[in-house]
């Protein structure tokens, strides 16, 4: 056989062995790669894998692949590569050893036998592992462990410098000369809400949605939220003072208010 035809096999880096395709899984039902087929065939010889007849195995494998071919099954590349390699090995085992041609046929055969032995050992180990005492399946841990309760006492660490820095940074980040006034502009104060509510309440005598008392020029969402909160606070304050009645018929439902008539 021409050694050149094995270049393809040589290129077969284990890292880039193509993943088994769907057709492979169907065609070589249950086999996981050429080594798997070899292992199954090897077991037929019923001897220690290290004493196996690789020659016989190679013939079995090659005829297995030929059979698949004759059945017009699609055989994946790596199965074919293995068949070709085994054919090569066979020829090396049968032909007289030439000098300076790398490992002898016997050496290669030994290595293959070892590889199969190793795979078998791992298969058996995996099986034993699953058949062993698995915690959670065969041996159970306590079903209701009390656990250890951890009470955490937090101590906070903070230096004066950090505190001052935070205060300074905060001002700096704002980068504005008079943040207080600007902020007040953005916030609709409770005082303002109270004033507006008191002034407007008389004009709407029946139960009215509290949100109707919001100033109508609010476009900024922050200002709007601020106004909602402040108006609610103002209404609560007025209710406390006895000038207002509040009702809400459902959770998150509209809050309605009405002026409370004196003496009622």
């Amino acid at each position, binding site marked *: 056989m021409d050694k050149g035809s094995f270049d393809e096999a040589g290129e077969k880096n284990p890292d880039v062995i193509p993943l088994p395709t769907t057709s492979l899984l169907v065609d070589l039902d249950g086999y996981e790669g050429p080594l798997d087929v070899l292992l199954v065939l090897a077991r037929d010889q019923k001897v220690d894998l290290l004493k196996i007849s690789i020659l016989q195995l190679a013939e079995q494998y090659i005829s297995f692949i030929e059979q698949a071919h004759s059945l017009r099954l699609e055989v994946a590349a790596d199965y074919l590569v293995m068949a070709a390699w085994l054919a090569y090995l066979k020829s090396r085992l049968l032909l007289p050893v030439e000098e300076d041609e790398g490992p002898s046929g016997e050496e290669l055969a030994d290595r293959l036998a070892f590889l199969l032995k190793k795979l078998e050992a791992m298969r058996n180990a995996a099986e034993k592992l699953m058949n062993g005492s698995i915690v959670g399946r065969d041996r159970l841990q306590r079903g209701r462990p009390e656990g250890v309760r951890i009470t955490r006492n*937090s101590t*906070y*660490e903070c230096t*004066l410098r950090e505190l001052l820095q935070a205060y300074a940074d905060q001002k700096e980040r704002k980068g504005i000369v008079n943040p207080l006034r600007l902020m007040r502009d953005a916030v609709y104060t*409770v005082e303002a809400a109270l004033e507006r509510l008191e002034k407007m309440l008389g004009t709407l005598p029946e139960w009215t949605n509290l949100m109707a008392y919001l100033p109508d020029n609010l476009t900024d969402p922050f200002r709007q939220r601020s106004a909602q909160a402040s108006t609610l*606070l*103002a209404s609560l304050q007025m209710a406390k003072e006895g000038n207002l009645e509040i009702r809400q018929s459902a959770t998150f439902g509209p809050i309605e208010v009405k002026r409370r008539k004196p003496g009622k």
Partner: protein
Amino acid sequence: MTIDPEHVRMVEALLFAASEPLDEATLAARLPDGADIPSALAAIEEEYRYKGVNLARLAGKWTFLTAPDLSWMLEEERETTRRLSRAALETLAIIAYHQPATRAEIEEIRGVGLSRGTMDVLFEAGWIRPRGRRRTPGRPVTYGITEEFLIHFGLDDIKDLPGFEEMKAAGLLSIEPSGIFSDLRKAEEEDELIDEEEEEY
């Protein structure tokens, strides 16, 4: 009648592995027919009486529990040192410089809403306390710093907190005085940081 030691082992294993206390009927259903459950339980109860784990009967069901005198072992006190979040740090600074300050005032100065957790952390650290209520609508609670705060930061008095000029000199500030700091300086001059309009609790 002698108790089958195998049955005792089985009850032991079942009670150990169960995720909740088991009653005698459940145990009986899992054990070979005719097993004497009450006797097995009595044997286990006796055997574990002085161990670190005892057999306990809860609401008519059986379970293993840590011996009551050892329950303290299951509690671990852990000291953890934690750093304040930026939000907490800023909030603390604002309260310290502006006390008494309401929640709304803190939010106004920081320009963002105050999450519940931020104040909680400061309370937990023992550095802030409610001081009273503002006499404004809604009568909001005002907050101030605590004696622990002063002790932690090595201050004799809240007035010892560095003022604006000192902060600037210390290289902490690189901006021009804002309204906040002029308030501060004014307060310093007046020798009065405490809001007049405040009722103590």
